[in-house]
């Protein structure tokens, strides 16, 4: 879960990482009560990058300028996203801009400290100059100093910057974050440092043990897939532009099914992973419930020619899944729903096949055959 810049900076402040005086702006008129002296910078609070180039960052010398700039930014789309909040911040002229980040390295299964003397907008160009330090054992500040020295820092800057890295790591560890990034960390000639922009990504799995972060999630509209909020959060939905709905149990299986539909010339409209295989909360009828929820969502939110259901290796026998489909079909007449194609494997397959055949739903135990039928129906 990405945080907005101003939320990230609130966490920085709690951790003692220096930030500029700033104020959250919900409406342009909030600028009349601005407590920061001019000149100020107004920054669009969106989840995507590239807002500077898009015009989402503007300077203002006085209140009139600021209100005009704020109105512009509120109406400016950054890669399709409009801000609901701006951040007004004191203007600052850095002498040097550093890049710092803490992330998780999947293959090493350890946190990674990243840093570069080419910070700010230069970092993308100088990606190969980013230095790395693996936090192999439990963190201790010497890992931060290692990074500072790899970055080529000298003298007082070593302790100054490693102190910031240490605080970033503590934030990362205490809040279970996926990413803490400061870009740029401004360094002044007098040896002060200041986090001018920051990115924080909270880990969704750990959110339930961080009520403060979970509250941020509620606080603001979420980016992107708004409609999926009607589904349980464990059910993952991806929307596309075709006419075949795909409903599977398991992420890998969903992707594989999507690939097969595409390879067979079909056009997927979406694919929905029912999840739950290793979900601790698993109630005995989880799969049946989710099939029902998934089908309900699909027929209400997408214009489909066919829905392909591919369920593999569940502990729920095929006949019980067939029963759920039976209920679903009874609730809706043929004109109100697209045809179904089912691929089932597991216990009581033959019983399920027979009962669904009676309802005109083709059932396959071979995946390729189910794909072929679904694609044919979608074109028909």
């Amino acid at each position: 879960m990405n945080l907005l810049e101003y939320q990230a900076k609130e966490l920085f402040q709690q951790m003692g990482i220096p930030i500029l005086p700033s104020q959250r702006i919900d409406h342009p008129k909030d600028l009349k009560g601005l407590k920061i002296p001019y000149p100020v910078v107004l920054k669009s609070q969106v989840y995507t990058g590239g807002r500077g180039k898009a015009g989402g960052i503007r300077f203002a010398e006085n209140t009139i300028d600021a209100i005009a700039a704020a109105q512009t930014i509120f109406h400016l789309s950054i890669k399709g996203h409009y801000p609901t909040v701006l951040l007004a911040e004191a203007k600052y002229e850095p002498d040097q801009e550093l890049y710092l980040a803490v992330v998780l390295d999947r293959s090493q299964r350890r946190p990674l400290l990243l840093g570069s003397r080419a910070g700010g907008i230069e970092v993308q160009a100088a990606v190969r100059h980013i230095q790395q330090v693996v936090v192999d054992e439990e963190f201790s500040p010497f890992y931060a100093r290692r990074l500072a020295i790899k970055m080529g820092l000298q003298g007082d800057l070593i302790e100054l910057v490693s102190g910031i890295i240490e605080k970033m790591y503590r934030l990362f560890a205490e809040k279970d974050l996926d990413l803490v990034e400061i870009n740029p960390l401004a360094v002044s000639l007098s040896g002060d440092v200041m986090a001018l922009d920051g990115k924080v990504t909270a880990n969704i799995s750990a959110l339930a043990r961080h009520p403060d972060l979970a509250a941020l999630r509620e606080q603001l509209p979420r980016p992107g897939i708004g409609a999926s909020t009607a589904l349980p959060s464990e059910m993952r939905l991806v929307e596309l532009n075709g006419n075949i709905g795909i409903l599977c149990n398991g992420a890998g299986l969903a992707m594989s099914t999507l690939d097969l539909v595409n390879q067979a010339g079909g056009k997927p409209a979406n694919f929905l992973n029912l999840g739950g295989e290793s979900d601790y909360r698993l109630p005995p009828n989880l799969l049946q419930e989710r099939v029902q929820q998934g089908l309900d969502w699909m027929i209400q939110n997408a214009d489909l020619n066919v829905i392909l259901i591919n369920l593999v290796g569940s502990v729920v026998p095929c006949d019980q899944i067939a029963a759920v489909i039976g209920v679903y079909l009874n609730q809706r007449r043929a004109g109100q729903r697209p045809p179904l194609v089912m691929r089932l494997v597991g216990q009581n397959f033959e019983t399920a096949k027979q009962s669904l055949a009676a309802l005109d739903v083709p059932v396959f135990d071979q995946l390729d055959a189910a794909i072929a039928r679904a694609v044919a129906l979608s074109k028909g």
Partner: protein
Amino acid sequence: MSFTSDHKVLVQGITGALGVLYAPLMKAYGTQVVAGVAPGHGGQRVADIPVFDLVEQALGAVGKVDTTVIFVEPYRVLDAALEAIAAEIRQIVLITEGVPPLDMVRLARKADRVETLIVGPDSPGIIVPGQVLLGTHPPEFYTPGSVGLLSRSGTLTYEVALQLTQAGLGQSIAVGIGGDRIVGSSFQQWLQILEEDDQTDVIVLVGEIGGDSEETAARYIAEAIDKPVIAYIAGRTAPKNQPMGHAGAIIASLVAGWGTEVGTADSKIAAFKEAGIPVADRPSQISDLVKKALSSM
């Protein structure tokens, strides 16, 4: 390889939703589930398996075990695994999904130090067909044989196993290393185990988009694995930068942002091809490639 029908198995979290469902299935498959652990439930029985409050109490009563399968809720997985390690259990299978990544980092540091093998989390565990079930694999899809199956998925693993079985290709083992971002053991570790396993003639590696496990595995195979390996990658046509279940979670925020293409299906397939490893276009093609590999041995 040490997973045989002689092996003694502990189930932690045996009274929870997952434990109550799968411990009896494991036992029904012939796995020697000698004890269960669930704090506060000591003295109870689940499918005639005795339940203890602590791992050390369980081991005190039933003796040493070879593997523990952990079904506890996500925020208790780390503690359960550390309890098992403290009791000197050196093979741990984590089934539960949703374990916070930094818990896994702490567990990985500890497991590396004491040389403990961790499978999962968010994993179907391990099945050695005809011998032992350590997790949630549906046994009816599997049959004994010589194909070693490694995967990051759950149900897609079952799909591939079923198609192998239907094609007459039995399995020496199937391991789901886990779908979460940080998992206890890597493809490389398992490739090495299967390389040394007498029962395994050919290895099938089922990957997904996201992360760099497959790229790293491909390089490792080229360097260190002599047995034939067949690869398959799910998500070739999945849209980029969309978190979808566990797959591809990392693509979104970090690596892709820097303009490198690690984690895509193209990158993974290219890595396998460069290592000389045949890549199946679809699950049903895997058995053909396996047969081809076996026939040329």
